[in-house]
């Protein structure tokens, strides 16, 4: 096919337009405010697993410039709005992640991110469920959704406990389940062990014909979720899976500025140990938290992947006009 042409069908263009319209209708009916925040950001992310695109701002006539980053998600800016008293908000925007490209990844993709003031995770999950059903109504027949515990799923499909299982146990389980290389790959990095085993052995089985909400993630996995009050080893985080694909990540948001800064510092320490760049902490976001973030829950949802499922597409390129290779 000639390179100038879109990689998606006209049907995908139309489906996307219908999807966007139904999202806006959904939130309008619930009085959630649509907002826009900058795509070009002064502060980078500290998350060691995210690689932002970096560019340079040159003011007119200026010889030197200031670094700017393309946002990896609108999370920090939206939290600043929440702290400023916006109330519940949503945004449909592009996010950019370098070093992410594949059948389910395009370096530039569309996110739906929303925050609900006063919602705990359960209420947010109810709303995600309602929204997804509304969007998919004409394309998918979904059974009743499932709410599952990360730890139980991991025990069931991997055969070891993600929190307390020893590295020997994890190695043994992965070896008998067709991943003998896991031990050499993951070493003593528990996050890596969990990422590898969960994505290989658990995720493909999730959300077949129904939405799977996976809750209560181990606290040491990166997130901006608050710890569970009755079990600080897990956080109030939810991941959404449909047809084996990860669609989104939601949190009962951390509002504690001190703990937030500690997490930034921990990220930076990991980055330093990895020999990665050391971006400045987002001081404006921290200042907003210090000022007071209302109790809220928020979620980021990948709309391109949702469209993939609705259209039974094999590749994200099938639902994008011009994926980066053709942009």
């Amino acid at each position, binding site marked *: 096919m000639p390179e100038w042409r879109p990689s998606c069908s006209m049907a995908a263009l139309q489906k996307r337009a219908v999807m966007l319209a139904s999202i806006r209708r959904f939130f309008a009916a619930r009085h959630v405010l649509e907002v826009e925040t900058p795509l070009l950001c002064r502060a980078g992310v500290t*998350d060691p*697993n995210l690689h932002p695109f970096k560019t340079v701002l040159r003011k007119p006539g200026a010889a030197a410039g200031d670094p700017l980053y393309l946002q990896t998600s609108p999370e920090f800016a939206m939290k600043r709005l929440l702290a400023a008293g916006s109330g519940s908000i949503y945004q449909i925007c592009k996010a950019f992640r370098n*070093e*992410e*490209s*594949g*059948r*389910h*990844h395009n370096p530039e993709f569309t996110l739906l991110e929303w925050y609900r003031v006063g919602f705990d995770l359960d209420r947010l999950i109810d709303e995600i469920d309602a929204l997804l059903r509304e969007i998919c109504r004409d394309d998918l027949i979904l059974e009743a959704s499932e709410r599952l515990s990360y730890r139980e799923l991991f025990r069931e499909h991997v055969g070891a406990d993600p929190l307390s299982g020893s590295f020997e146990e994890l190695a043994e389980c992965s070896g008998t389940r*067709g*991943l003998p*290389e*896991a031990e050499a*790959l993951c070493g003593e990095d528990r*996050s*890596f062990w*969990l*990422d*590898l085993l*969960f*994505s*290989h052995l658990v995720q493909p089985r999730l959300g077949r014909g129904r939405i799977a909400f996976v809750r209560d993630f181990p606290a040491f*996995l*990166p*997130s901006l979720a608050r710890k569970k009050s009755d079990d600080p080893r897990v956080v109030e985080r939810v*991941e959404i899976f449909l047809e084996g694909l*990860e669609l*989104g*990540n939601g949190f009962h948001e951390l509002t504690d500025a001190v703990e937030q800064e500690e997490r930034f510092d921990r990220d930076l320490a990991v980055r330093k140990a990895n020999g990665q760049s050391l971006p400045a902490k987002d001081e404006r976001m921290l200042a907003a938290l210090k000022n007071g973030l209302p109790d809220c829950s928020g979620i980021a949802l990948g709309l391109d992947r949702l469209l993939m499922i609705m259209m039974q597409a094999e590749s994200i390129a099938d639902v994008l006009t011009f994926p980066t290779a053709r942009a």
Partner: protein
Amino acid sequence: MATFSTNEFKGGLKVMLDGDPCSIIENEFVKPGKGQAFNRVKLRNLKTGRVIERTFKSGETLEAADVVDTEMQYLYNDGEQWHFMVPESFEQYAADSNVVGDAKKWLKEQDICIVTLYNGTPISVTPPNFVELTIVETDPGVRGDTSGGGGKPATLDTGAVVRVPLFVQTGEVIKVDTRTGEYVSRVK
């Protein structure tokens, strides 16, 4: 020797894995939203033909394998070795039964096939996708029966056995798809 990083892995690339040359079949980038990125790679061991799945950290590298696919003419079998020749250079190579593997039942003298060389030694042989072979033995069918239903076994001059329609007779030349082992048509 050159190395390739996971982001360069693509179908057909030949790399060394655990000391054996392998051909990459598929490379899937996997990244949990908040986690480590890795690549799930499917490879074929070119010596054993076995398909392996292996996960790598994104950015990890593998050494390139000195593997070349060369078109050669199959000459003859001396009872132990199968002999091939590069038509342009007349260079000859011999391969044993393990190397020729399943290809042997499709090899007809003079046919051009692909011989995979690793460090200059044959490690596998791929027959042409379609071969024309003579039926040396099959049950006589009912004349005029053109129904496809089931067919009957026929032994070919290379020793291969394929199912053919009932109307095809001993002595006829047929076209066979070597990838599926299926009868395609009669050859006039």
